[in-house]
């Protein structure tokens, strides 16, 4: 006897078909599969956790409410990341960063990791990279983040940003050059 597949066994394509029929379980499974990557892309683009969560929330709403217009090309993951990238770019201004300060004014990590030395290093590195990313233009930053964080192909990024593949390649090279130049490698020497 053949058993029906569980929701976890269904492909994204099947889940999208069910989600179009307002199946809440299918929607939730798609959310669980892709939420972390959507968050990482938004976090890299915006440099702030709370802003990134807001963008992911807006993007999920857009993705599910516009599912009828999704042609299936590239799959749901590509569709969602494209929306996340565009929503992050549209956000325009960023909220004030919610840096948590300790009593002596030193920034501390929001993570619950037990190794303070390691966390401080990670926080310093993240701050340095966020600042370098911020110096890139929004378009170049988005191109680079989609490539480096999500591993989207040149072709997929070109479709996301509505530019030729050659533009995507030159943006990625430009981003690399600018990031290399903007980062103070001497300071980061012992950390990277």
């Amino acid at each position, binding site marked *: 006897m053949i058993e029906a597949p569980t929701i976890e066994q269904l492909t994204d394509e099947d889940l999208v078909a069910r989600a179009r029929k307002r199946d*809440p379980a299918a*929607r939730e499974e798609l959310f669980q599969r892709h939420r972390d990557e959507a968050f*990482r892309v938004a976090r890299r683009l915006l440099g702030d956790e709370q802003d990134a969560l807001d963008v992911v*929330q807006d993007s999920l709403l857009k993705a599910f409410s516009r599912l009828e217009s999704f042609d299936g090309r590239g799959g749901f993951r590509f569709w969602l990341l494209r929306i996340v990238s565009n929503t992050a770019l549209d956000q325009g201004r960023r909220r004030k960063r919610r840096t948590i300060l300790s009593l002596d004014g030193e920034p501390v990590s929001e993570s619950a990791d037990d190794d303070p030395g390691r966390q401080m290093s*990670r926080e310093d590195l*993240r701050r340095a990279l966020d600042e370098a990313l911020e110096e890139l233009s929004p378009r170049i930053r988005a191109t680079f983040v989609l490539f480096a*964080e999500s591993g989207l192909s040149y072709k997929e990024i070109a479709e996301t940003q509505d530019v030729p593949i050659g533009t995507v390649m030159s943006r990625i090279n430009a981003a690399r050059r600018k990031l290399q130049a903007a980062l103070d490698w001497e300071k980061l020497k012992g950390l990277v």
Partner: protein
Amino acid sequence: MRGDDPIRETTSDPEAGPSSRLDRLWEATRPEPPSTSDWDRIWATVSAELDQPAEADQPAILPTPRRSWAAVGLIVVAQAAAVLLALGLSWGRLDDAAPDESASAPPTLATAAVRVEEGQLVLIRSDADVVQITDLTVDGGPDGVDAWYLVYNLLESLANPVVAMSE
């Protein structure tokens, strides 16, 4: 650049070139996933928003007769307010055209008892100390020109035709 590893595994290659140095930095700063409670909150918000249109798809509740009458009453009141506003504007324009010493005095409104039969279309306006009554029934009526068209035309002619024609 994708991978699972944190800083400690990436610090063991000091001879690497600039490109791999950037790759290592990228890996080392990979954002940590939000907490489960953050995701739960986001999903609750998204689900609630997505379920809203479903409620809107429910068949609309037909208005009861009382509601219908209330709607008709509301329309009548709105139309009456529009007429009063137009009258007020026409007075204002007339006053502007001929400012006089009585400008600060409140306008005097004439009053009169007017009998209007059912189906009769009458424009009543107070002009200084007299009440002017214009019967539009002949021009209007069930097969004639739209009653509101007649009323607005008359109001426009009372306001100031010169202004209406100016560039």
